[in-house]
């Protein structure tokens, strides 16, 4: 048997040149060595790579000689035996040796066709110039990247939140944890609503629906509307182009104007909830009287367009029935509180009152001319004052003592004329005057006595000038008597209680529609606002007028000492307590901080 080796070479223009060579021997060497029978100029081939030989039974055998394998019909091996017919394909390095039985003249010989199938080097392989020289060969195409980006964004930021919204339970079984729709949040919630983070549906109740007031009042049960809703809308007047467009578009989304969130904007960051802006008030109130029928005066910027204060003033009607009416301070109103009390007299630093206070001394709580605090004391909130009570405020000087038994001074009962009459009658029935009883029934005057001890000794020595009970009673209730100088007394004609005293009703609060906090004004003296030193009558309404406040306070954006938005004094959801803005201490310094807790407790509502 013989071999015919056909070596195929390819020309530059792609033609094949076949060079056949016959070998009349039974074994051929294969290798890179030029002396090999089958010479493969291929660096992947060993110098003496293998031998191929004929074997018995028309078989062909190929055996590796350098220990390097080759492929026979795609199978890696170092020794393979196969039939010459149909033959096999051997791959060594980049060369292909296809073994076939000879045909025709070559019958009986084994034909081996040798051909280089792989390129000499990587660079020699066919390359698409435009592609390999550009980034396209190392990156996915821009189109694929664009689609990938689009799909990724839509999947994470649209599909996921939507699925999350529509699969979450709407009741309380919903977990307060991260939900995918938080990817849509426009900012952190304010501090008060912080606990609602991770609980979007607490406010965003229905999918695709804006926040409704029902979500707010679910927690804020005690907040009431500012006014009738229809009237509110009317007061607002027709919206401009901008707001009109907003309302129109909102209408398409089913949004009614006047929602809570219009003023109470959320998702503005983890800060205190923003203070309500002045313009939310002035939108309506600036010229509201033009739009609706209202008793309210137009108001806008505090520094420029605020009406004069109108405190609620008490008037005594016929038969002493009181009535209350708001009167402008410009009208210098007088109130009927039933009392006779000249502030000027009591606040003088030189007169008898001042002397009396000095004489009473520090032990009694005086020791200097009277000042406001001797009678007026702060209430628990610090913002206002407790009602003046006669005994602690006036009693030190205006004594009601009339008798002494042992070491005990007997006093007439304040606030109870019948009891006074009865006590005096009893005093005389018991054989009075057994001892000189004080100084008759005259009102005790300042400087008469200074201490309890002196009062007692004075009582021992003073002479009683009044003969019987009726005379004494008349004296007490008449000019110069203990009751008369402070109270309005009228005769009843009834012999058992011949005199009656007009009840005293001091105003606890004048500004029912606004808030004033005395504690916040601790830096000022009383007299800097209240002109009481010249007040001769108890009926004087000694409230400061608007202009006095405007010395320090201006509008929200004013360059005044205290820029003051409406909400500093007025609450939109008004109650009897400090406006939210003041309670939350968001507009001013620390002075008002303590109010909050106390006021909330008194209000009985936390919300």
């Amino acid at each position, binding site marked *: 048997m013989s071999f015919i080796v056909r070596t195929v070479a390819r020309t530059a223009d792609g033609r094949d040149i076949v060079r056949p060579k016959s070998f009349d021997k039974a074994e051929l060497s294969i290798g890179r060595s030029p002396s090999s029978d089958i010479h493969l100029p291929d660096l992947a081939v060993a*110098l003496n790579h293998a031998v191929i030989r004929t074997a018995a039974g028309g078989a062909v055998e190929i055996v590796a000689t350098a220990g390097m394998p080759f492929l026979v019909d795609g199978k890696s091996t170092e020794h393979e035996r196969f039939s010459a017919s149909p033959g096999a394909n051997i791959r060594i390095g980049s060369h292909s040796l296809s073994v076939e039985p000879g045909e025709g003249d070559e019958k009986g010989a084994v034909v081996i066709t040798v051909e280089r199938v792989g390129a000499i*080097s990587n660079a020699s392989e066919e390359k698409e110039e435009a592609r390999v*020289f*550009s980034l396209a*060969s190392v990156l996915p195409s821009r189109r694929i990247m*664009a689609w990938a980006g689009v799909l990724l964004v839509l999947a994470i*930021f649209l599909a996921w939140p939507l699925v999350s919204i529509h699969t979450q339970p709407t009741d309380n079984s919903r977990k307060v944890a991260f939900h995918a729709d938080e*990817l*849509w949040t426009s900012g952190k919630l304010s501090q008060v609503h912080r606990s609602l983070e991770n609980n979007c549906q607490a406010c965003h109740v229905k999918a695709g629906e804006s926040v409704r007031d029902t979500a707010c009042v679910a927690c804020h049960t005690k907040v009431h509307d500012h006014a009738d809703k229809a009237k509110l809308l009317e007061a607002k007047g027709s919206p401009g182009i901008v707001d009109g467009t907003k309302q129109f578009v909102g209408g398409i989304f089913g949004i009614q104007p006047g929602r809570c969130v219009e003023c109470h*904007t959320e998702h503005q960051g983890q800060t205190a909830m923003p203070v309500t802006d002045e313009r939310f008030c002035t939108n309506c109130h600036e010229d509201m009287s033009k739009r609706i029928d209202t008793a309210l005066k137009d108001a806008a910027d505090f520094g420029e367009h605020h009406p004069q204060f109108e405190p609620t003033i008490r008037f005594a009607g016929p038969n002493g029935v009181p009535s209350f009416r708001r009167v402008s301070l410009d009208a210098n109103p007088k109130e009927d509180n039933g009392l006779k009390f000249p502030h000027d007299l009591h606040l003088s630093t030189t007169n008898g009152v001042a002397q009396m206070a000095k004489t009473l001394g520090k032990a009694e709580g005086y020791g200097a001319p009277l000042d406001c605090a001797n009678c007026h004391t702060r209430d628990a909130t610090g913002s206002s004052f407790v009602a003046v009570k006669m005994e602690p405020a006036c009693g030190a000087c205006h004594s009601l003592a009339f008798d002494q038994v042992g070491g005990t001074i007997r006093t007439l009962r304040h606030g109870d004329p019948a009891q006074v009459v009865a006590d005096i009658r009893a005093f005389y029935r018991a054989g009075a005057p057994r001892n000189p009883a004080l100084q008759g029934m005259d009102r005790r005057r300042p400087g008469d006595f200074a201490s309890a001890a002196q009062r007692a000794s004075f009582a021992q020595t003073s002479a009683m000038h009044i003969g019987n009970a009726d005379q004494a009673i008349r004296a007490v209730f008449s000019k110069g008597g203990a009751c008369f100088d402070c109270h309005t007394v009228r005769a009843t004609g009834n012999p058992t209680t011949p005199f009656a005293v007009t009840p005293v009703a001091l105003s606890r609060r004048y500004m029912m529609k606004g808030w004033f906090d005395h504690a916040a004004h601790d830096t000022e003296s009383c007299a800097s606002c209240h002109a009481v030193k010249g007040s001769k009558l108890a009926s004087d309404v000694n409230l400061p007028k608007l202009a006095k406040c405007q010395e320090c306070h201006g509008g929200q954006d004013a360059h005044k000492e205290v820029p003051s938005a409406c909400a500093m004094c007025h609450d939109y959801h008004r109650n009897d307590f400090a406006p939210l803005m003041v309670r939350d201490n968001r507009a001013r310094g620390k002075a008002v901080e303590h109010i909050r807790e106390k006021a909330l407790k008194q209000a009985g509502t936390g919300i």
Partner: protein
Amino acid sequence: MASKSLRQATTGRERASEHEGFLRYQSYKWLKIALGISAVALLIYAFNDVQPKPNGGSIYGYTTGTIGVLLILWLTMLGVRKRAITPGRWSLKSWTSAHVYLGLSLIVIATLHTGFDFGWNVHTLAYALMMIVIASGVFGIATYAMLPQALSANRGETTQVQMLDNLRMIDRQLNEAAQPLDAEGAAIVRMALDDDPFGGGLIARLTGHYRKCGTRAALAAVRAHPGRKEAAADPYDHVEVLLERKRSSLSRIRKHLRLKALLEVWLYLHIPLTFALIAALFVHIVSVFYYW
């Protein structure tokens, strides 16, 4: 001068220079327009008192947002427009000039739209994507301005095909020169031959550092080979020369590849991220009005 006016007359274009690029097109007309828009936007922002704080939901916010989204959509139209080349007022050059400067004005418009209110959400995602797209565009312009000269200098007079052919020729010579070598020597040379001059991925392309360069490894191995003889007929000598030549040829190709990569890479951010941005904008608008 005469030839210029003649050329102008024949083309009928009102251009002062034949070499006016898109950046200085019509004496920076679009730059001036973009600056004007930005200045107006800033002025309004400065004097617009939004309570409680500036945000995209104010009237001004809606306005800048609408302008921004329309502008972004128009900017993407450059991709459509550039495939149809026409002369005239809205020539591609004019369009490109407007694309660049109006695109830059988005930095102002969109930033004011945010009211500087950022967070981990889809809204800020859209903003961030937009800024990356703009930044990649700026990078692209910078490379277009600076790199072509370097590219041309590196390439000399050769074309890309010539560079590759040169490499192939060296490979053929290497293959032949290595024929007498034993298996070990052949393996060393094959490291150089099997090396893909275009392999190495994005990082290698951008930096020009090919850590697994077979040619460099082969050169080192040949130099360190213990079988080297002082005799004149050492086949390794020729192999070393050829390897050195291949390394030099490769380094020129790779510098070329690096410059080309820097010229192209911005588009691989600019285009895909633009589409991601449009998707994010879509979600931004949907989500804003979903719970409006």
